[in-house]
């Protein structure tokens, strides 16, 4: 997408009067200005490819349903009210897990980032949790938390906590020590230091963590909704696969894809607004 203009256009001139602008315009090395809506170009290309492969019969509908069948099935599910129910339940679980996970992850990252004692206590267990897949942890969580809603929300929260912690901690430790020295020079208290230096400095890391976290919350849904769920997108997919209803599974996957794109878009939007002060390749 790089603009390699070597001639600046002269606005409002007829071809007859056209004069060459003599000002030198250098080639830009960055990706150039933002084009709105670029997030959707890749997925739409994929969709076109899928439709093409289905229409020409290259893609067996038994392995992946055709896009129009998926749309029909989705309409059917919406008419029955099943899709909305599933979405509402899943959204509630995911948001609750997200809020708890983000809160706990942030607090842990601050404690471990700002104190060596905290790091000694917190960092190890978080790395251990990172190495254990949620799916493998499920039996244990069921043993500890039973099969009700607390187990589901906490499983999601655990999946969310990790990226928030890692990226915030990393962002915090990456803050230039000159800022800390400056804060010490002007005798900021610890509270003010956290407010004015640490939090803004760790925000880029935190927001990157949030991008991972939002998707982790969605991914965890599939795992937690296999156990004692009566609705939710994950439950809908599991149930459909036990009856061999491929088209409903694909509807579920498409819903996940859309949720993922939208959620990621929202976080990136927040990122742009919150980090407007940064002069980086992204904003340039």
């Amino acid at each position, binding site marked *: 997408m790089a603009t390699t203009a070597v001639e600046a256009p002269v606005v409002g001139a007829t071809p007859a009067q056209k004069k060459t602008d003599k000002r030198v315009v250098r080639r830009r090395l960055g990706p150039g200005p933002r084009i709105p809506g670029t997030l959707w170009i890749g997925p739409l290309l994929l969709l076109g490819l899928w439709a093409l492969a289905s229409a020409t019969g290259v893609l067996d509908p*038994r392995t992946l349903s055709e896009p129009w069948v998926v749309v029909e099935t989705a309409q059917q599910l919406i008419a029955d009210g*099943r899709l909305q129910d599933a979405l509402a339940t899943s959204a509630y679980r995911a948001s609750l897990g997200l809020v708890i996970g983000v809160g*706990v992850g942030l*607090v*842990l990252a601050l*404690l471990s980032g*700002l*104190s*060596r*004692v*905290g790091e000694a*206590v*917190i960092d190890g267990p978080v790395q251990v949790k990172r190495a254990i897949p949620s799916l493998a942890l499920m*039996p244990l969580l*069921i*043993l*500890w*938390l*039973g*099969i*009700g809603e*607390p*187990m589901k929300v*906490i499983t999601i929260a655990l999946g969310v906590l990790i990226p928030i912690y890692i990226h915030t901690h990393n962002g915090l430790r990456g803050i230039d*020590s000159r800022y*800390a*020295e400056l804060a*010490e020079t002007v005798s900021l208290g*610890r509270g003010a*230091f956290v407010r004015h230096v640490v939090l803004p400095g760790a925000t880029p890391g935190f927001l990157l963590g949030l991008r991972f976290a939002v998707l982790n919350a969605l991914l965890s849904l599939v795992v937690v909704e296999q*156990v*004692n*769920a*009566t609705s939710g997108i994950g439950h*809908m997919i*599991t*149930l*459909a*696969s*036990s*009856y*061999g*209803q491929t088209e*409903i599974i694909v509807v579920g996957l498409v819903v996940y894809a859309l949720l993922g794109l939208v959620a990621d878009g929202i976080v990136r939007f927040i990122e742009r607004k919150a980090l407007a002060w940064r002069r980086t390749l992204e904003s340039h």
Partner: protein
Amino acid sequence: MTIRPTSARLTVVAAVLATLLLGVTACGGADAGKGPKLAANAALPDKIPDGTVLRLGIPNAEVALKTSGLIDEVEGYDIEWANISGGPQSIEAFRADALDASIVADIPPLFATWTDTPVKIVAVTENPDPLENPIYELGVSPKSKVTSLKDLKGKKIAYSPGQAQGALVLKTLEAAGLTQKDVELVEIQSVDDTFANALAANQVDVAPLGGTQLTSYLAKYERDGATSIRTGIRDDATLIYGPEETFEDANKAAAFKHFLGLWVKAEKWIDEHPDEWVKAYYVDHEGLSFKDGKKVFESSGQTLIPPSWDGFIKRHQETADILVKEQDQPQIDVEDLYDRRYEPVVAEALKGGQ
């Protein structure tokens, strides 16, 4: 210059947070209110003290009771329904003390016993015509030529040791006069549509498929040459079981006695209102179309509750013996797994409505 170490206050906050997390964790699965202990040979009490709760993973009974309105007859105790069925999930929930009873086939109670989760079986159901309406048939992959049990020799067969499907494979081999050495058993857990997918991709030649899995597999792949054959073996054993603690708790035992009466009524209601049942369970709860739901119900959804458990237990012992022999499991006397105090309760309820 570095940032000064955190004050003790922050460390205390961290400790409090950690404790909170653990605290939430600890109280999640706790079950309040244990009743007095009931000996295994004591008569079942009738009195249900206030506040008794049964946590049941019997989704079909839940739907039947709620649809028929029989749920209003639950008296003196509360039911917390869990949408859990099948061996692995129910055993997991029993261990977590999160469930009092669940409905499964005849293999899970054996595996629960072998994995040190003592359970008791308190109700059994069969199919009115088990050989005509088997739960499972052997699906045959599009590329394999298997038309009779004799053709299984040398074939790849999907095999899940801890599930009813696994036991069925072993029984089928025995009936065909083959041993495990004559075939290639491929260990796959049957979760949702794994077996159907393995067949469709020609990864295995033969796999047991039940109910909708079979119909959807044939509907999709028959044109490529997929078929199925019957095993000729009874596979209709279904039972309600729970961890021993449930039935050692006098309050829960009394409540369960009452519930079993209701359960029999619910099964009768299903027999008398097949269309309402198909709509409530297969359409609304399971998301099938009415036509598909009716097909499943008519082939493998019919239940018959036997007044005497003798025949059922005898067949269960045969199943256990095959697993002992073929999988080197410890000897087991299945009679020990049954709590026969509930047998007359069910028989009485069966008489009650006739």
